[in-house]
């Protein structure tokens, strides 16, 4: 015979446990922090802080200056030996696509989080490696640590030391829409057509 109170206790424990799992995985949709960020940005576009940045030509600008045009943003550091290379290639792809679609006015910004090492000269060298020309593709860095912290919070950027003096960071490609809101974040290994199609999606 079943023990007294067995069914209610079993239901209670199961419901609480499944509920907690569903909450942590956003309804069994994500298991990683990166996945959770991408889902959250897609569901609730974020407004961005007005942070002064300097590009490879020494020009001062802010992400708010782009209102009216969509912008792809990624975060890099110029000494990066790993993930930033495919990320740079992806942005090159977008540039090539832009050449054949002159009606689309998409801009690219790569923001360095390594304020200590990435001065203007380092940014310029990084840009030259991929043929990046401002203002079409800016390689930039925040002027102050506080600005970087604000961007870090808004974009959900996670940077950890790699143990050999460099960094490991999430390589998401972020999309800011024409109204200046952060609307999407893509995995670094997403094919360029995936986020280009999102671009045409937000313009319509």
């Amino acid at each position, binding site marked *: 015979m079943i023990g007294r109170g067995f069914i209610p206790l079993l239901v209670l424990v199961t419901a609480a446990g499944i509920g907690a799992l569903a909450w942590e995985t956003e309804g069994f949709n994500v298991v990683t922090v990166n996945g959770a960020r991408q889902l959250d940005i897609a569901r609730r576009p974020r407004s961005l802080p007005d942070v002064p940045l300097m590009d490879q030509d020494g020009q001062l600008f802010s992400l708010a200056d782009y209102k009216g045009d969509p912008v792809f943003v990624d975060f890099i550091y110029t000494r990066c030996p790993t993930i930033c290379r495919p990320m740079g290639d992806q942005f090159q792809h977008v540039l090539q696509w832009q050449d054949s679609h002159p009606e689309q006015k998409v801009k690219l910004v790569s923001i360095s989080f390594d304020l200590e090492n990435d001065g203007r000269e380092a940014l310029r060298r990084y840009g030259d490696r991929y043929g990046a020309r401002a203002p079409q593709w800016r390689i930039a860095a925040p002027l102050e640590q506080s600005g970087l912290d604000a961007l870090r919070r808004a974009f959900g950027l*996670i940077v*950890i030391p790699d143990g050999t003096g460099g960094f490991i960071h999430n390589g998401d490609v972020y999309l800011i829409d024409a109204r200046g809101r952060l609307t999407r974040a893509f995995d670094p290994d997403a094919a360029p057509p995936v986020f280009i199609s999102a671009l045409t999606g937000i313009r319509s």
Partner: protein
Amino acid sequence: MRRHLFIIMAAWMLLWCWPLRYSLESDMALHMTVQIPLLIGIGLLLSPFVRSIEPRWLVDADWLGIPGMVAVVLVTSFWMIPRALDSALSDPLTDAAKFVTLPLAAGLPLGLSWRRMPPLGRAFIWANFIPKLGAIGGLYLAAPVRLCAYYRIDQQTEAGWALVTIAAALGISWFIIVFFGLQSAPLKTWFGFQVLRRPEPESRGYSSALWR
């Protein structure tokens, strides 16, 4: 008795203290295979104290130990989600939740309910747990991307190897006990191949058919 309780509580606090917490959590393998099992162990050690004051209705409701083991499985699954591990690192409140739920909602029910589980139930839990541990370890070894944002890929590989090693060790022990008939009653009971010949004093005997 009281002194034991004091030592367990002190160990719990010590694990929370920054140097120990930091050193165990800064490495993915230590986090998953040392800190989390230690926290579950604290709950296990607390279970004899709770058993003596466990209310009758709970003993009845935790029939064959099933609700308790469901809690153990769900709580441990929760803390194996990469996002949960990451949150424990970045947010002290989540880490505090981990320090409370693993002993009290996983270790404690494990200690209380395991004794109520019939051998078949215990064998079922082990037969599920061992391959699952190995599979998760294998997944960590095979994954080309980092699953935890706060751990490096080499740490993920290390954690994968640690999990696979533990799964293999448990699997081999299981195998030896089954096929070579290791004559250790406590070990056999633990792995679910023998009934502990000491029925729960509170048990009304409704589970006798499954117990014997």
